[in-house]
């Protein structure tokens, strides 16, 4: 492979072809005079005489050319080209908004079109492909995204005020912050509570097979029930409890709000948590336990000093699944008044205000990805014999 005749990397070629087609043929941005009026759409080459669009096309052609004769050197060059594209994209948007927005339109909104969403998707796929081919560690992949994020941030804060998503954010930045806080608080509370309850349940399950069968049966059953239905079904009994007992009502227990959301989240979180904890406790090699006992450790010491450290990566995997799942489910909880980022999604859908939907949906997506990556990295680090 390394010698003279290298085979073209068809994946990169296909991705770049798709990217170029999207860039040439589909709408890149839209311009609307205000939030309500639907805007006019423009393709990339219709803006600024096409020169800014050409500047974005060249790196893609470079990547395609490099993919023709792949070697570690050319692939590394391709990686830099894609990163350059991601860094340049906000500046293309700056150029587009400078040429489209007239000074007499203070409320004008630049919307990101289908072409740019597709490009972002294609470029991220390209990054994943290049990272895999070059065998770069996952953490480095995240590090590479830092300059991209910095470039977007600078462009957004100083030059991209007309970007519709940014305008939407500015109009409700306080609400946004509160929504993120509520979202994280609900997720954190559910994950923590399920961690504690899950540990107790897993320990009880190890002692009593009856508890194990009933517990797993019930939790599997809960996991099957759709979230909207579970939120709905919890509404009635909690409303009744809140109406009946003033003490409960005083701390906010009612059919609507955090109480049903928290309970449903806890119910869904328990299954992955308990399952992983149980497996973690079961799967420790009996010989290791035996030798620990032989060293004179008592049950408690074996649990704390041998079982738990060995079980930690599997438990972390449970926490990862639970957290990612809870971030998504909390979004649904907005429907029953629990707040969080889902509020923007469902309000936006109700008002057909797509920027508002994006303002809720994109951070939810980002939170899930970041939580997933962070906990994965942590468990990689803590794995016995891993990069600790």
């Amino acid at each position, binding site marked *: 492979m390394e010698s003279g005749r290298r085979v073209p*990397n*068809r*994946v990169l070629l296909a991705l770049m072809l798709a990217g170029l087609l999207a860039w040439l043929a589909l709408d890149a941005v839209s311009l609307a005079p205000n939030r309500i009026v639907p805007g006019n759409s423009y393709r990339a080459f219709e803006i600024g005489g096409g020169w800014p669009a050409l500047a974005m096309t060249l790196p893609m052609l470079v990547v395609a050319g490099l993919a023709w004769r792949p070697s570690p050197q050319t692939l590394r060059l391709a990686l830099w080209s894609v990163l350059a594209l991601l860094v340049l994209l906000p500046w293309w948007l700056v150029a587009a908004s400078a040429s489209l927005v007239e000074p007499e339109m203070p409320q004008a909104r630049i919307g990101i079109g*289908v072409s740019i*969403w597709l490009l972002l998707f294609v470029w991220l*796929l390209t990054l*994943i*492909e290049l990272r*895999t*081919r070059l065998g770069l560690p996952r953490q480095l992949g995240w590090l590479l995204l830092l300059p991209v994020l910095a470039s977007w941030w600078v462009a957004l804060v100083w030059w991209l005020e007309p970007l519709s998503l940014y305008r939407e954010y500015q109009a409700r930045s306080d609400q946004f912050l509160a929504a993120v806080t509520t979202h994280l608080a609900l997720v954190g509370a559910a994950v923590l509570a399920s961690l504690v309850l899950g540990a107790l349940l897993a320990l009880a399950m190890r002692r009593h097979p009856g508890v194990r069968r009933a517990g797993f049966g019930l939790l599997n*059953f809960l996991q*099957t*029930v*759709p*979230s*909207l*239905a*579970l939120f*709905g*079904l919890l*509404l*009635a009994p909690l*409303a009744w409890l809140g109406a009946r007992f003033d003490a409960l009502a005083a701390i906010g227990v009612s*059919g609507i709000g955090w109480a049903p959301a928290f309970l449903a989240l806890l119910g869904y979180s328990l299954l992955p948590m308990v399952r992983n904890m149980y497996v973690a406790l079961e799967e420790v090699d009996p010989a290791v336990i035996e030798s620990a006992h032989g060293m004179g450790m008592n049950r408690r010491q074996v649990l704390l000093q041998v079982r738990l450290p060995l079980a930690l990566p599997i438990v972390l995997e449970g926490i990862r699944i639970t957290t*990612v799942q809870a*971030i*998504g*489910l909390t*979004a*649904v909880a907005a*429907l*029953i008044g629990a707040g969080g980022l*889902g509020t923007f*999604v*469902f309000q*936006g*859908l*109700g008002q*057909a205000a*797509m920027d508002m*939907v*994006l303002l*809720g*949906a*994109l951070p*939810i*997506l980002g939170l*899930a*990805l970041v939580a*997933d990556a962070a906990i994965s990295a942590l468990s990689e680090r803590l794995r016995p014999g891993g990069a600790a």
Partner: protein
Amino acid sequence: MSRQELTIGAAGLQTQMRSWLAPLAWLFLLVLFASGMPHLEGAFRWIEPDSREVIYRRAGFFVLLGQHVLVVGVASLLAVALGIGSAIAVTRPAGRDFLPLVSQLASIGQTFPPVAVLALAVPALGFGTLPIIVALLLYGLLPIVRNTLTGLDGIDADVREAARGMGMTGGQLLRQVELPLAAPVILAGIRTSVTVNIATAALGATVGASNLGDPIIAGIINGNTAYIVQGALLIGLLALAVDSVFERLLRRG
């Protein structure tokens, strides 16, 4: 096939019947509640004494159930065809270049919350049934692709070698060896996909599709707990019925 069935015998047949009992029971309950909901007016009156109307009447429960099943069914069938198809394509010699990317995409994509996928489909495709089907299809693809890849990957190399040695062609190897061996894992992927889709489709009621999520959303908006319970009950029963069918199919595999 027939020889196998004959050897099952009377006792085997009985246990087979019994093992279908759970799915049949859930289906029976589902149909019973979907058809008999208006007769439960008394019970719902007790839940929701303040409202004038306690039975959701904007559409029949069977119509809502049918639409729910239709949307999930179409999306899931497409997801199965596309998901298994693409997983097979990237494990053949011709498509193997794409295997790392597809398998990474399938695992990264599963961290996307279904709600976010549904919400992002609307700006791209508009309101109504189509964006829901597309969102369910895209999201439902991931577990199927991933499990098909896992299933095909888990087949012992010796088994493939032996099949090749018997003179099987690539197509025969796939149909007679690889797919049957990977079937349980693939089926588990389809189960995950369908379960998530039933739940996500219910959220489709917020983007203009009418299905079993409708009574819940209407109930939340109007503060009518009885509506919520009706929708939640039927969605729950539908999910449990479908899940128990998969449970049954998997146990045989």
